[in-house]
């Protein structure tokens, strides 16, 4: 109700949101300040020619990645708030019953987002500015021009983060409109599952985007290798973005079946089956949890595949020309490409980290909301170890679904990108798979989720069965 009171009553459920906002704002501010320092450095060294275009290029690339991170954050925040709201539905129904309007309840949930985002963003700005000042100190006399670390535009990403968080919290609280006051009168404690509010309209939009995107992707690739027209990339890129957006919008429609499938494949033990059932109980919530991770892992896989394939094709093309003394150029070229790839991967990594936090956060919240049920399981003789592996299984299954979708998708995107760019020179080719990147991102996210779900798993087993079954 009163946003400050809600946060104070249960500050821990907002900690992950705080962290996510912090990371996003830090990322955005650091890019701005980093670019500020870089261009000041260039100006001081009087590298006048080209420095402006370079700065603008880096700025565009950096801001693109910031926007991606912000988008993933907004998904995580909206999901967090919708889970928090679901956990409060009885309380909200009671408030509706006593005479609170839905508009008011939703507004105050949005305010909770605003209140969480402001200190998180401030902290991020302080840390980033601190880092910038340290960097400037280390550079010393090399920077004579003003880097403008404290200037107004440095804080645009921070302000954007606050606004986006606020709105995402408001969006996540959409479910409040569906809570009827009569729910408060029921004796049943069981909480209603979030209904799949993803309308037919969103499915329609998703399908249109997907079809359009696939056609453009195919067309772009075809233009490249069949017609040797380098304009293919210009068509393939928006095509890829279009189809990916289609998948994101339609996530509530296509992810749940996949989740069910993964759950069925994962194993037959009681803990795995319970985990799969928990995921299936809130199919849209789980889908929303997974989609952030899908975005991150797809981008990582895409960049890695595109760059690796590009590099390999370029090298084999050069070798096919059979020129003397090419090795030196070749080495330099490979280094540039690998560094560019690492730079891109580092940028996407922020989104992956945010998404992993989102998964763990969803786990933590849903465990807390199942206190009563887990208490009952334990009262009926479920061992703590089994309860723990149930929670762990849930996290791993969600991550597995994400990898299952994202890795093939990223490979295809990256491959088509490489085809569009270089197949006019080389003709058709198969993608080169960036094995180590794939290994790191898949195992890394599984491991991160596994490690991080130890906290909610432990919380689940410290539930006292007697207290859990008592009515409050």
């Amino acid at each position, binding site marked *: 109700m009163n946003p400050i009171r809600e946060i104070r009553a249960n500050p821990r459920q907002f900690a992950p949101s705080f962290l996510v906002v912090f990371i996003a704002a830090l990322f955005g501010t650091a890019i701005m300040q980093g670019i500020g320092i870089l261009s000041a450095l260039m100006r001081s060294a009087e590298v006048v020619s080209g420095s402006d275009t370079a700065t603008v290029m880096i700025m565009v690339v950096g801001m693109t990645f910031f926007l991606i991170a912000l988008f993933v954050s907004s998904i995580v925040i909206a999901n967090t708030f919708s889970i928090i709201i679901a956990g409060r539905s009885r309380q909200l129904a009671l408030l509706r019953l006593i005479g609170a309007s839905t508009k008011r309840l939703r507004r105050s949930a949005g305010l909770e987002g605003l209140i969480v985002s402001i200190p998180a963003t401030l902290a991020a700005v302080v840390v980033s500015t601190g880092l910038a000042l340290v960097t400037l100190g280390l550079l010393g006399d090399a920077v004579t021009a003003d880097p403008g670390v404290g200037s107004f535009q440095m804080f645009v990403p921070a302000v954007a983060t606050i606004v986006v968080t606020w709105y995402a919290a408001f969006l996540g609280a959409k479910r409040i409109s569906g809570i009827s006051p009569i729910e408060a*009168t029921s004796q049943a404690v069981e909480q209603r599952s979030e209904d799949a509010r993803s309308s037919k309209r969103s499915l329609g939009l998703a399908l249109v985007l997907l079809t359009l995107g696939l056609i453009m992707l195919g067309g772009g690739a075809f233009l490249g290798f069949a017609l040797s027209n380098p304009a293919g990339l210009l068509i393939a890129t928006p095509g890829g973005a279009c189809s990916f957006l289609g998948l994101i919008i339609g996530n509530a429609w296509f992810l749940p079946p996949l989740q069910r499938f993964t759950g069925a494949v994962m194993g037959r033990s009681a803990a795995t089956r319970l985990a799969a059932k928990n995921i299936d109980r809130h199919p849209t919530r789980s889908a929303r949890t997974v989609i952030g991770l899908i975005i991150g892992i797809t981008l990582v896989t895409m960049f890695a595949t595109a760059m690796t394939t590009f590099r390999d094709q370029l090298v084999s093309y050069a070798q096919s020309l059979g020129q003397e003394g090419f090795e030196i150029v070749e080495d330099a070229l490979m280094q540039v490409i690998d560094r560019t790839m690492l730079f891109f991967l580092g940028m996407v990594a922020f989104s992956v980290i945010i998404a992993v936090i989102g998964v763990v956060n969803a786990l933590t919240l849903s465990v807390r909301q199942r206190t009563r049920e887990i208490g009952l399981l334990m009262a009926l003789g479920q061992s703590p170890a089994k309860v723990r592996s149930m929670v762990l299984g849930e996290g791993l299954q969600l991550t597995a679904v994400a990898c299952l979708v994202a890795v093939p998708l990223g490979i295809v995107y990256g491959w088509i990108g490489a085809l569009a760019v270089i197949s006019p020179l080389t003709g058709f080719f198969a993608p080169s798979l960036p094995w180590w990147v794939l290994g790191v991102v898949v195992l890394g996210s599984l491991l991160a989720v596994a490690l991080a779900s130890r906290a909610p798993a432990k919380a689940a087993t410290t539930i006292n069965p007697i207290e859990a079954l008592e009515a409050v």
Partner: protein
Amino acid sequence: MTQPLPDPASPTTYSAPPIARVRNVTKTYASAHTSVTALQDVDLDVAPAQMTAIMGPSGSGKSTLMHIMAGLDTPTSGRVLIGDREISALDDDELTKLRRRKIGFVFQAFNLISTLTVIDNILLPFELDDRKPTTQEREWVDHLVARLGIDHRRDHRPNEISGGQQQRVAIARALATRPDVLFADEPTGNLDSRSGREVMRIMSEAVRDLGQSIVLVTHDPLVAASAGRVVFLADGRPVTELAGTFRAEEVAQTMLDLESDAALDSESDVETGTAHGSHVVTSATEVEAP
């Protein structure tokens, strides 16, 4: 503002106009395969400054009637008036305001916001109305809190006080805005008998000393005996009632008769295979997403 209403077929006549009126109300719950008639053509007048108890076998429609009278649920057909406002015609905003200002609720459990202290729970209706209680209202709340014996618990949270105390807080909250009518659905259902008696004493006093109108659902003949009038429901209809002076034994006997009727009824149901309104309430409200 409304057309004159026909007199209900009620044995009692009142000097003051009724505080709530139910006219030809029918409520049917329809799902894909079955349809349950929870209320069937119900007519009821609730007298002001009196406690009206509603009794009946489980599934007879008591809760449904309460929800419809309080504007929480809409009847399939028929009209409901609180004072002289027809609430079946109000939109959600107006209903929300009505609940905030004119109606109080107490249920069997889960009446309080767990994150709020006792006193904040009681003051919640004012907060929802975007205003501070006036000095007078503040005094009234203080008086209620003292009277209900929860003064020393003001700053506790609901999970730190007993079930009986929680119900008293719920009553204080429901009475804080001096609602036109207080609806209580089995408010003592979760309490031990001593706490239950305590809660009932407080409600009776609210009627006697403040002229509060109360509609109360209960299973306890002793509780019902402290009401001015008992209406008995069976299969979604008022079947009989007691008013004036009556004893708990009479209430208990009437209930027994109704329940054995119901039992006979359901036996014949099995034979003839007809469906009746008295189903077991399924509490699982989980709705799976498609």
